[in-house]
Structures are given as C-alpha cells and as structure tokens.
C-alpha cells in the first residue's frame, strides 16, 4: 500500500499480510467492500526501494508488492535517465519530481496504472460510502515522484549543494523558489471525431512546450497550482471563444462536444480568436484540410487592340481544389449541398470552411474589367470580400500574362528605316515597348539619362510605321527631339506644334511642349494619334494639374511615358504615370493609396510590396547605367549636342544686338571693326546664355528667361535623381555666378571654381565635390588648369561653346580620365538658330572656316565680310 505525503519523499509504503506482524494499524478494504483494521509495517519510501526492486524479481511476490516493484523500476529508469526536476510542492516544500516526461513515458505510466491491482491501493478514501479506492494513475505518479524525491539526496548532498534545499531529506520551506521551479501552463484544444466533433483540452508546460497532458489526466494528478493555472486559462479561452463556456460547467474541464455550427465558427474565425488568446487548435490528422479556393479569370479575345478598354470584361469563377487537383462538378455539387463542416470527398473526410461551401454554391462572381483581371493575373491574387485570394488566369488572359512576362515570343529586329545601330538593351527596350503597345497596354520607359530613350522611341515609331506620333516634352527638349529624329529617322516628317501660328500634321512626329498641350488639348485631341509620348513624364506627376488632365484628354491607340527619374520610389508619381499609360491598372487614386501605397510605404508590408512589384513590373522598364548588363555596352564617353530654343526675350535681345552692332560694324574698319566683331560675338553668346548676363542685371530674376537654363535644370534634376554628379563649364565667371545662385535657390548643392579662386581653396572645393558633398561643380575654363581631378562626375555640361573642340575635350577630360569608373556623358547646350548653332554645324561639316576657327579662335571671324558675318549671326527659326 502506498500512502502519498508532502513532500513526496516522506511518503510511506505499508506492508501487511497474514504472517506479517506490525507496529502500525491501518484500515484497508477487502473485495467485499468492507473496511477492516490490520497490522502493518510502515516503511519510508526510500527504504522500500531496494526491497521492492528485489520483489520485482521474485516470482512468488504478492501481486501488490510485485506491482510496486514494477513501479520502482519505472521510477528508477526515469531517474537513471536524469528525468527529475526540482519543484515546490503545494505545501511550499522542496521536492524532486519525475519529469520532463516524453510520450513513451506517459504511455508507460498509463499502462502501469492499468495493471495496478486493487490490493495495491486498498486504503479506502475518507468519508466515502460505499468504500472507494483512489484512482490508480494519480497514485502511480505520486509514487514515482516519491521515489524520485529520495534519490538525489545522498548523505553528502547538503555539503555538495552548499545548502539543504533539494539536497537534505528534511523538508525545506522554499516558497520563494516557486517562480524558479514553475513556468506556468498554457492550454490548447485538440479537435477529435469526424461524425461528431469534440474539443479535448490539453495542457502544456510552458517550461517544456513538448510536454502535453490532457486536462482529464491533469485533474487526476498534478499540483493544485498547475490545476489553478489551467482553470484560469480555460476560462480565458472561453471568453475568446464562447462554445468553450460549457467546459466551465463541468467538474473536470476535459472536453466538450462541438456542434457542427461550433466547428464552422471555429473554422471561420474562432481559431484565430483562440490563437490571439494563446490557445492553439489541433485538427485530427486524418482530416483532409487542404481544400482551397482560387479565383479563375478568363476573358474573350477582341480583335481591336484596345481590348483593355472599359467595355471589355473578364469572367471570374471560383475554383475549388483538393491540393492541386480541381474538384469535379459533381464534387462541387456535393460540397455545395453540404450541411456539415466535413464532407466526404474522394473517400476521405474533408474539412470544409463554410466560406468554401458558399463559394462552391456561388461559383460565378461578378465580372471585372479586363484591366482589373490582368492586374489580378499579374499579382497572382485579388481581394474578395476583404480577403486575399489566389488567382489563376486562363485562356486568352493567361496568354497575355505570359506574353508580358516573356518577351522572347516573336523577337522583332530594328526597323530598316532607322539610321543607327541599336545597342542590345535598346533593342530589348524596343521589343518591350512594341509588346506592351501592341497589346494596347502602354508602358513607362524609365532608363537612366544617356541610355537612349529617344532613339528607342524613334525606333518604336518606325516599327509601328503607321499613324502619327505626338511627343509632349519640356520646351527645352524640343530641339533635341527634332535633331535626333532627323538624324536617326531621316525622311520622317517632324513638326513642332509650338509657338504662334502652330499647325498640326497627321503623319510622322509632332513635337509639342506641356504648356502648349495644356492650351491646345482640344485641337490635339482631334488627331487620331497612333502613339502619344510623354517625355520627362515626371512633369505630369501631379494628376490634379491642368497639364496632367489635358494630357489625359488626348486620345491615342497607345501611350508611352519616358522618364529618367526613378519614379518607382514615389508611388503616387508612379500611379500618375501608369494611370495615364495604362488607365485602370492601378485603380483610382484613393483605392491605390489604400490598397498599395499605404501598405507598401507606411506599413512596410513585404507581401504587399511583392505583389505590387509583380503588378507594375511589366509596365515599367528601368535600366541603370551601372547595371551589369548595360555598362559594358556603353561607350566610355558619349557626346550629345543639346539644342535649345531662345526664349522670346532672348530672341528679341538677340535680334536687337545683331541690328545695332552690325550697323556699327558696317560703319567701321580696321582695328575698330575687329573690336566690334568680337564685341558682337561676345554679346550674342551672352544673350544665348541668359539675358541677365548680357544686361548685367544686379539682382536678376533667372527662371523662365533662358532656354539654356531651363535645359540645365532638366539635366541637373535628372542627374541628381540618378545620384550622379555633373561638371558645368562656362566661359564666363559672371554666368557661373548666376548659375551658382540659381542652383542654390533651387536647393541644388554646388561649388564654383574660377580663375580667381585661391589655390588652397581650389583643393578644398575639389575634395568636397569628389567626396560627394555637392552634385554640381561649376567651372570657368580659365580655372580648368592641370592637376584637377574631378572623376566623380559622370556628366559634363558645356553651358556655352568653346569654338575649339580641343579645348572642350580638355575640359571634359577633368571628368573622363584615369580613375573614372562610370561612362561619362557630355552635353553641349546650343542655342538653336543662333551663331552657336551655325558654328557647331560648321565644326561638324569641317568647312574651311572651321579650320581657321580652330586655328585662330574668334579672331577668325573678324576676317569675314559684312555679308558673311550677317549670314553667320542672323537668327533663324
């Protein structure tokens, strides 16, 4: 007979028998249920261990003795494995208990308890009539603990441990160690059954999460404190999920039957609420739970290229599948008719979320617009009733998706009419633009400046071959467009729709500015454009602006946006651009903000960011100069003439200067004439630079008065956005100062180096630029002496012309020299129709004058006749 005590090591075994005299009297129950007093010997459990372990080997031992002998072996095996743990008993005493126990241990203890003969527990429970015996399993566990508690307490244990707690056989009062010895418990629910469900409460030890015990077992054994904690945990779980309240009506909160509606509720959001309360739900292992619903999108093909117009719709259907295998219509019907949260599918019980059953009933959803369907196909998911659902595109929609994803389909070559060789990445860009525009989808090409967006677009125009292309760009870029079209697509009509008396054409290229487009959107809308291009499309990033709204009013078969700034970093800008090129793709602005911009930019939700990237990725092509695939294709140095138009003020000043000074020149000869010619040239160059420079204004207003300055702003903005650096050369210190002030006013960091800069300061300025402190370095030629190393610059701007290209090259070499790792782009700004333009043309065609200019600089012009001179300086349009 085992009699448990607190602490466990003070438990005793009472031996009694006919031939056993004893000092103690104990009450036992017999098979008839009658109580009787017998003589017995009480032995402390520690002393009983060797006796019992011997009894285990004795075939003649009494069954009760043999049983406790077997229990001793189980206890010793646990101890021999080191499976004992310190604990604080309900009486606040120190105790070693068996544990942690694994599943096999629990099973072994259960089996042992099953085999306990009534004689081994024949002491009747107090106050019970008819007589009752203690439950076997708690008794076995208490016995195991009692044995475990004696074992570590050797004679020298107190000495070894340095203190009596957990070492001395004497009970030690250690309430303060409870927190150390116990970590608390948490509960989980195990759902069982298929025909009828029930939730079984399991209790987990927080100290060892692998230790799980059913509440039923816990209530039979375990400490008061563990039970208290489990009780409170169950009450909290019942608050999270009310069907568990029925547990609280039970004496032992072991399990509750679950109604089908409970299971449905658990599937719907009960499990989520329980999880939030720290309660996991475990489903039966043989219950199939991988029934999933995805959305299938399909759309019929239309012949028109604008099949992503608002009229075109896609059908939306639910597809339910077990694993990857779609359900048959019969199975769907069975699912639809299911009235229970489990359905027999393919010979297995399958757990059915009520939401899934509803989807099986309402298989067809409201059709969506084709563009929405494409967006869903690209992201692979869509939102239905506030929930992200996986999407599969089929049929033609899937073809479109695949085409967008893979350009290798029908590779087109460069158009024969293109008078240039496209680099590989430019050809890729052309194919991409062709693919997107031929699908009527529009696109945004956002390559770095200098990668040849213009030539790619010209190639696209030539490839499409048909109707007119409208290019909308900043005024400062009109000249560049015209020149590049004339150069790379010779014979293609190009017309500027700009300035007074402007007229339209319905073939070739029409170039216009954002300003003109805003004023004349109605006229532009009358033309049936094949392609509308918005260059430097960041100019329409504010969708509420008049410019952006006017742009939207110009219809086109396809739309392409070009930009050199990384729009993908500012989602609202990206929306503005893509909503123009591909209306509807990103939804309305408020919807876009809620669905994409906020989760991506504010919440930093990675899953949403990944879906967003999948959605916009196909519509946005951005290559960096530094990309591994691009850099090798770029020449180390690219030189571009950047023609700009004079402003009206500049043109008027220019003509006035020509009139006035040509008259003076005509009246003079010899040295005086030479001096006046030089004066004329200087004056004209200053007018081209900026009226304020020519007029020597003391505190001039700078913006909006010079075509060159406008272009410089465009270039600098792009370079700064690309995180690049630029050297700006001008012959005139005065102009350099104006530029410095202007850039500073616009918040662009810059440094100015000129002939008057002390040598010591020069080095400091160079260092600051090289260290990346400022993106713009302004230089006058005289300052560009030897020893200047400005290799951080990847752009060089010649704000005004040096007549001698060798001098320009020398200046350019400040950036392009040993140590430069990036390709350098040289931009030569040239005022159109002016003497600058004329001389640049001369230099290109290497006429005789060019040679003398090369040889003698401006003095060469003094030799020209009045008529020749007039021809040179005359302002042409």
């Amino acid at each position, binding site marked *: 007979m085992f009699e448990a005590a607190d602490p466990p090591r003070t438990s005793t075994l009472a031996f009694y028998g006919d031939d056993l005299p004893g000092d103690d009297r104990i009450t036992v129950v017999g098979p008839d249920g009658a109580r009787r007093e017998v003589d017995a010997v009480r032995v402390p459990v520690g002393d009983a261990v060797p006796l019992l372990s011997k009894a285990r080997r004795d075939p003649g031992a009494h069954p009760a003795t043999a049983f406790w002998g077997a229990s001793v072996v189980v206890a010793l095996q646990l*101890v021999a494995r080191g499976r004992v743990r310190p604990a604080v008993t309900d009486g606040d005493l120190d105790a070693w208990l068996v544990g942690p126990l694994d599943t096999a241990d629990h099973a072994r203890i259960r089996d042992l308890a099953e085999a306990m003969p*009534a004689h081994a527990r024949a002491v009747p429970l107090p106050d019970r009539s008819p007589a009752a015996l203690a439950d076997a399993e708690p008794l076995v566990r208490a016995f195991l603990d009692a044995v475990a508690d004696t*074992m570590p307490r*050797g*004679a020298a244990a107190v*000495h070894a*441990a340095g203190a009596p707690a957990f070492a001395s056989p004497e009970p030690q009062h250690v309430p303060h*160690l409870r927190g150390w010895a116990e970590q608390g418990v948490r509960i989980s629910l195990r759902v069982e059954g298929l025909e009828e469900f029930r939730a079984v409460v399991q209790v987990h030890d927080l100290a060892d999460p692998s230790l799980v015990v059913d509440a039923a077992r816990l*209530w039979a054994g375990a400490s008061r404190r563990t039970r208290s904690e489990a009780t409170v945990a169950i009450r909290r779980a019942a608050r999270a999920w009310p069907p568990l309240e029925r547990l609280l009506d039970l004496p032992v909160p072991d399990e509750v039957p679950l109604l089908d509606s409970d299971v449905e509720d658990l599937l719907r959001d009960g499990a989520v609420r329980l999880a939030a309360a720290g309660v996991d739900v475990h489903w039966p292992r043989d219950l199939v739970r991988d029934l999933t619903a995805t959305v299938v999108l399909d759309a019929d093909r239309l012949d028109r290229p604008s099949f992503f117009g608002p009229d075109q719709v896609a059908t939306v259907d639910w597809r339910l599948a077990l694993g990857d295998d779609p359900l048959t219509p019969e199975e769907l019907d069975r699912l639809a008719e299911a009235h229970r949260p489990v359905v027999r599918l393919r010979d297995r019980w399958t757990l059915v979320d009520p939401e899934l059953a509803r989807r099986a009933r309402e298989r067809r959803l409201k059709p969506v617009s084709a563009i929405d369907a494409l967006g869903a196909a690209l992201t692979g998911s869509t939102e239905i009733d506030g929930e992200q659902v996986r999407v599969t595109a089929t049929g033609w929609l899937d073809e479109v998706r695949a085409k967008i994803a893979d350009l290798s389909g029908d590779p087109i070559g460069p158009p024969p009419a293109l008078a240039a060789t496209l680099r590989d990445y430019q050809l890729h860009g052309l194919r991409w633009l062709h693919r997107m525009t031929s699908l009527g989808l529009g696109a945004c090409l956002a390559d770095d400046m200098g990668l040849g967006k213009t030539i790619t677009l010209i190639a696209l125009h030539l490839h499409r071959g048909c109707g007119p292309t409208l290019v909308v760009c900043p005024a400062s870029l009109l000249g560049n467009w015209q020149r590049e079209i004339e150069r790379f697509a010779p014979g293609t009509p190009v017309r500027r729709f700009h300035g007074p008396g402007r007229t339209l054409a319905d073939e070739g290229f029409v170039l216009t500015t954002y300003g003109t487009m805003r004023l004349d959107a109605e006229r532009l809308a009358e033309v049936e454009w094949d392609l509308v291009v918005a260059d430097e499309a960041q100019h329409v990033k504010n969708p509420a602006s008049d410019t952006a709204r006017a742009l939207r009013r110009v219809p086109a078969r396809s739309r392409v946006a070009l930009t050199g700034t990384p729009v993908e970093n500012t989602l609202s800008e990206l929306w503005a651009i893509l909503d123009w090129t591909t209306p509807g793709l990103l939804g309305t602005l408020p919807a876009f903000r809620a669905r994409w911009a906020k989760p991506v930019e504010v919440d930093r939700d990675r899953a949403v960011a990944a879906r967003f990237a999948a959605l916009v990725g196909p519509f946005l092509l951005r290559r960096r100069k530094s990309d591994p695939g691009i850099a090798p294709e770029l020449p180390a140095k690219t030189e571009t003439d950047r023609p700009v138009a004079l402003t009206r003020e500049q043109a008027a000043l220019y003509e006035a200067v020509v009139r006035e000074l040509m008259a003076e020149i005509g009246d003079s000869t010899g040295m005086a004439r030479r001096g006046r010619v030089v004066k004329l040239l200087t004056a004209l160059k200053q007018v081209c630079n900026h009226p304020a420079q020519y007029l020597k204004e003391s505190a001039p207003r700078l913006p909006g008065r010079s075509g060159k300055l406008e272009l410089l702003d465009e270039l600098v903005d792009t370079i700064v956005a690309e995180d690049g650096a630029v050297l700006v050369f001008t012959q005139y210190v005065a102009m350099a100062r104006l530029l410095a002030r202007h850039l500073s006013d616009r918040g662009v960091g810059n440094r100015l180096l000129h002939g008057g800069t002390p040598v010591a300061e020069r080095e400091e300025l160079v260092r600051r630029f090289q260290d990346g402190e400022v993106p713009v370095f302004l230089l006058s030629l005289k300052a560009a002496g030897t020893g200047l190393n400005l290799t951080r610059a990847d752009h060089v701007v010649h704000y005004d012309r040096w007549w001698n290209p060798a001098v320009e090259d020398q200046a350019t070499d400040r950036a392009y020299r040993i140590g430069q790792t990036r390709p350098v782009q040289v931009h030569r700004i040239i005022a159109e129709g002016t003497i600058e333009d004329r001389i640049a043309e001369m230099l290109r065609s290497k006429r005789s004058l060019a040679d003398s200019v090369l040889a003698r600089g401006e003095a060469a012009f003094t030799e020209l006749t009045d008529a020749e001179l007039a021809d040179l300086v005359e302002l042409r349009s």
Partner: protein
Amino acid sequence: MSERVRGFPAFGKGARHARSWWGRAWLQALEDTSLDQRVVRQGRRYANAGLVGTITVSPGLLSATVHDTDDNHRTTVRLTPLTDDEWRRFLGQIAAKTGHLAALLDREVPRELVDAAADAGVPLLPGIGDLDPECTCPGWELPCRHAAALCHQVAWLLDVDPWVLLLLRGREQAEVVAGARPDGGESAVEAFAREVPVLPPDPPVVDPGPLPEFEPAPGLDVAALGLLVGYAAARARAVLATGEWPALDERRDRVRAAATHPGLATRLDVDAREVLAWRQGGAPGLAALEESWNPGRAAHAAWRSGGLPDAEVWRNRWTVRDRQLRFATDGRWYGYRRENGSWWPAGTPDRDPAAVLGEL
C-alpha cells in the same frame, strides 16, 4: 498547514465605493445589522478618511486599529466560520463546475455558486445580524463607527480579493483549491472485481542523457543541483543493475562526491588521500586506507606463493621499503607508496599481489 491569518494594508484616504455585487452584499449586511444608519455613514467617512489601520483577517475574525480624534481603538468584527461539514458541501459546489473555481481564481464570485451553496445550506455571504462587531471605544452603538469603518474597508478589499471572504469563513485559497476537486476514486468492490492486465514489461535501460541545466535561483547552487541529478542517476542505475542500495554514511559520501566532482572538493572538506583511495577502489578502497584487520591464511599464502620479496607484515599490510600492499575485504590487494611520511594509495588494486607490487 499554514496559519490562516492574513494582513492587508488598509485603503488610504479617498472616497471609494464597493463595486462588486458581493462587496455590496457585504455592506448590505452591515446596513441591515445596524440600528442607526448615521453610524454606518460615519463609518464610511472614517474609512474614506483612511483612519483604518492594517486589517487582519483570520477565520471568523476581522480586526484593525481605527484612529479617532480622541484615541486609537481596537475593533473586531466576527463572522461565524463554516463548519467542516459546511465546507465539504461548499467545496463540492465549487468542484461541480470548473467555472466556479476559475471565476474565484480570477477574483470574481459567481452568483450561481453563492446561490447553489445557499441551496445546500451553506451561507457564504453574511446576512442580517451575521456581522458581530466589538470595539474598545466607549460608544455603545452596534456597530460603532469604527466597526462600520472596518466593514467598509473590508467591502473594498472584497472587491479586489474575494478570497478574503473565504478566509473569514475558515479556509485559505490553497485549501479551497486543493479541496475543490472532483472526488475521483473508484468503488472498492468494482476495483477488486475488475481483472487487471499483467504488469507491463520493465522499461529498457537507457543511457543517461546530459545532466539538466537549471536557471539560476536565489540561494541555490544550481550547478551542484545538476550534479545531484547525476548522482541520483548513477545510484538508480546501480539499483537497477544489482538491486543493491549503495548507502554511504555522510563522510564517505563526501569522499565519493569529491572524488567524482573535483570542483567540489574544498566545499566537501575531505582529505586528499581519501579522495585518492576512493578513486583507487571506491568504498573498499577507502576502507583499505582507513581500516586494518587480520586477514586469513589465504592472504599470507598468496604472498608467499607469488615469490614476492620478504615483507614486514602488520595485520593486513605488507610493507617492502617504501611500498605497501593492503589486503582488503573484497579480496583484492591495494597498493600504497610512502611519501612525506605517510602512505598514499597508488596503482590499480588486483587479486594478484605480484601484479600490484610490480606496478608500484
């Protein structure tokens, strides 16, 4: 059994109200008991003024010192504790539904529990006349304002800790939790009648795992506790293997521990020779160091037949110059060597004295 007394700091100055239904029921009992509601209100003012000292709660008795303008008064309120039989029935009511104990542990009193207890004839909350006040003040109202003040304070206490009421009725939280469990058990007749399966086979002997590592705890050498687990494991393996209980007295166990865990040697206060002797031969080795006895002829014969050199023999010790062999009770010879004037265990014990002497 712990002493069923708890002290609670009283609530300080500030207007309060009983918020819980049981707190209000408690006050209702006070008001019903009182003949003069003015005194009850006075008591509340005293309670609000923070004039009540530390409140002591024990079965059947509340007491506190209440400060008044003239003097401090010792005030008590008595409430009859439940009898053991009433407690048995009440615990039965608690145990009937897990929710009852869960609510109490969450510091709420379920009305249903109180109603069920009342139906079983167990009054948990006091009713009219149940609160029996007594005070050292000269006033003759019953209750006096001091007792009323105490009752108000206790009502607030009950709001946050209903276990105070159960303690007042006679049991501590721990006792209630322990008592409020389903009876379990199995009818003796059925238990005897039931056929039990044969005993399961003994569990396999498994290699010991790594010793457990415990989190640090105040006042405990947790590393040493780990060693105790290791010791217990070794001991359990010995019992499993031999059925013997290798019991040692305290001193020998110290030697054993020091020999097993050299890091503990200083703490264990043992002699270096003893440790060596234990390492040489365990308990018999230690005996060879400490004890001498008269072995039988067999030992002498063994020495002689081994062709060993002549030795100076005293009891079980054969000495050859600075070497010595001790014949121990386990029938083996233990080698010793003289260093610095004392004999030190050396070599490996063996049944063959020649082998031991040879090793020395």
